[in-house]
């Protein structure tokens, strides 16, 4: 399936691809690859992903999507796709990306010169790791209902309240947050976008483990936390403008759904090829398993084609697709269904809980064959794919309104 994602390459593209392959081959250690392959949710095991960012930076690949003035590569969309493809194919770790992919574009757009100089290079080098502080206990899908209170003083803003679902905050040394700093009849107004150091006094964490067993999220408490007003990104009380800009990156994103699905399908196929059906035959030949796999392949073929066609259309000067949110409804479900079938593939070995054996460097051996480590926690973790970034119901509401005009 992965083979189909890029389509035919030009000679130039092929040589670009070769260059990337050489780099990855030379720099991806088995541990790094294993970390990439065992990624449960958006980010690989942190120490591995951090080490990889250092390597990327050392070779000039620290933030390939950034404009070259900030240290990016200035690649074409096609080159970026090949980069993603080769990284995915080689199981490079997925780097903690809230700084690089979400906060940095906002700093570039809304930041002061000082903010740009202070923050961007350290993201690039892997010295700074940003968490994203948006959701709150009573503001999930309805983000604008947030209540983290920010009192604007002479020099500082004093924060009280909490953020939740803060991915990997335990590893972050910075966090970007939305706080309610002004009163307004419209709930999107009066919000400020703040750039905060995690070691500021008054910040504390409560770990939240997800169903895979991983410490993926945190609740971040703010108890009279003083943030200098120089750490406001954009205008005070106008943080919603920054959010809207950021959400383009979060929802649109640079990653390819088709690629993610293709990678998973190839993985699923490999799993099934080493599993038996209980009668001594390969699971791949089980009529039910094969059928379910075929159904997912077909779904993925459509999604993959639609993505390629939309990209090609845009490249040839057509309008950008209005269908991103609509297409993601199905593709998220298919992505989840692959993980579910993978859990089915390993049969009774889906039961053992082996968080430690999955952890690179733990020295803990797996119960059963190595390939059973991933499917169950991956399936569980991927339930988040239809929650984070909006449930399918929220997306259907949006599509009904925006695309169908209802």
């Amino acid at each position: 399936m992965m083979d189909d994602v890029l389509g035919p390459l030009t000679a130039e593209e092929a040589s670009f691809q070769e260059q990337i392959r050489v780099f990855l081959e030379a720099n991806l250690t088995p541990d790094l690859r294993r970390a990439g392959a065992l990624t449960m949710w958006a980010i690989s095991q942190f120490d591995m992903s951090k080490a990889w960012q250092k390597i990327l930076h050392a070779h000039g690949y620290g933030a390939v999507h950034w404009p070259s003035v900030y240290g990016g590569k200035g690649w074409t969309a096609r080159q970026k796709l090949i980069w993603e493809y080769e990284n995915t194919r080689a199981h490079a770790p997925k780097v903690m990306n809230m700084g690089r992919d979400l906060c940095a574009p906002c700093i570039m757009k809304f930041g002061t010169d000082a903010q740009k100089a202070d923050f961007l290079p350290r993201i690039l080098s892997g010295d700074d790791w940003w968490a994203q502080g948006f959701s709150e206990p009573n503001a999930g899908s309805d983000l604008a209902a947030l209540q983290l209170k920010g009192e604007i003083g002479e020099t500082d803003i004093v924060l009280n309240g909490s953020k939740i679902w803060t991915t990997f905050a335990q590893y972050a040394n910075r966090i970007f947050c939305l706080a309610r700093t002004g009163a307004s009849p419209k709930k999107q107004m009066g919000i400020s976008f703040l750039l905060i150091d995690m070691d500021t006094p008054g910040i504390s964490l409560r770990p939240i483990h997800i169903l895979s067993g991983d410490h993926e999220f945190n609740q971040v408490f703010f108890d009279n936390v003083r943030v200098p007003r120089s750490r406001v990104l954009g205008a005070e009380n106008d943080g919603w403008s920054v959010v809207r800009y950021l959400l383009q990156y979060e929802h649109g994103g640079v990653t390819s759904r088709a690629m993610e699905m293709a990678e998973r399908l190839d993985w699923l196929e490999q799993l099934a090829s080493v599993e038996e059906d209980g009668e001594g035959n390969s699971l791949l030949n089980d009529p039910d398993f094969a059928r379910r796999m075929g159904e997912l392949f077909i779904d993925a073929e459509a999604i993959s084609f639609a993505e390629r066609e939309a990209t090609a259309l845009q490249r040839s000067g057509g309008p950008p697709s209005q269908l991103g949110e609509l297409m993601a409804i199905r593709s998220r479900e298919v992505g989840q269904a692959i993980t579910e079938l993978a859990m089915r593939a390993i049969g009774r070995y889906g039961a053992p809980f082996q968080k430690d054996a999955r952890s690179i460097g733990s020295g803990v051996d797996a119960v059963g064959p190595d390939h059973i480590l991933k499917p169950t926690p991956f399936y569980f973790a991927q339930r988040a794919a239809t929650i984070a970034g909006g449930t399918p119901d929220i997306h259907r509401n949006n599509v009904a309104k925006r695309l169908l005009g209802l």
Partner: protein
Amino acid sequence: MDFNLTPEQASFRDSLAKVVAKDYSFERRRKIIAEKARFDKDIWALFAEQGLLALPFDPTYDGLGGSAVDMYLVMEAFGRALVVEPYLSCIVMAGSLLRHGASDAQKADHLPMIGRGERLFAVACHEPQSRYNLSRVSTTASSRKGGYVLAGQKSVVYGAPSSDYLLVSARTGGAAGDRGGVSLFVVPIGASGVSREDYATFDGMRASELTFENVSVGRDSLVGEEGEAAPLLERMMNEALAAVSAELTGAMEALNDRSLEHCRTRVAFEQPLSKFQVLQHRLVDMRVSYEHGAAISMAAARALDANHAVNATASAAMALAGREADFVGKNAIQLHGAIGITEDLDIGHYFRRIATVRSLFGDYDYHVRRYLKHRAFGGALS
């Protein structure tokens, strides 16, 4: 769905939309299917005039050399309009067999006539027990001096009632089910020994049961090599599947347009239906279905043009477009309520066509298996 079309294709798509909107309204269709023949000669002449009947053929034979993408665009428009004239059976299917299998002399004889709308073909390659297996041929062609004698039965042959010629598969060797030994013949519909029972079909078209008793044909009626018709039939089926998927895509688009309009205007419990959240979400899901069906159908067209992974992609298209159209069709009926299940409204006619083509060309399960068969598993990731 916005495809990445060439400017010529984009304008062809627009012109097709205009043609069917103007000349193939639901009212006109109703009149056509109320007639016994269910074949409007003026419409066929119009299609000829627009170049649609010559579209896939080589310019050598007065054709336009159209691509599978071009054929997609025609079938999409015909799907929207529920065209009942035998374009699929005559131009797409018989056309495919002749294009890929016929001799130069046969092409020169038939293709220009077909392109001008003056000759029609039907494909008689299914038998009562063959289901979707075109190698399951029990009809025999026995070699005789100077030709063959055909005997057997063909079932549900679309377009036969309005055809001049049939393309008939028959066994010159091997046993029923063998890929080898199937041959293909051009047989005039009026040939001695051909008997026909014509009937209407649920989708507003016409088909026949055909019996061949001692039907003598000349050696020059053989299309392609003796015993080697299986690859021709497979290619034909792939082109048909791509075309049918395109047709289903057009039908989905029409159903979605109608349903959206209906929900905006129909009031129940003091509100337009479109104000109910569950119906909004249903309409979104129907749109999701359309988009995925459109994508896979166009993928099949492009696969044909590239001659790459043709079997797998054609079956992927029929499987998925069929499944999506089924979902859209059922829900369009639900949204329309009782009037949706009557012959009075177009909604039900789309539904009948969707259900019928899945019966004719293979349901979801069948095409998932066919996809699996041609997309061999095992170590795709290098």
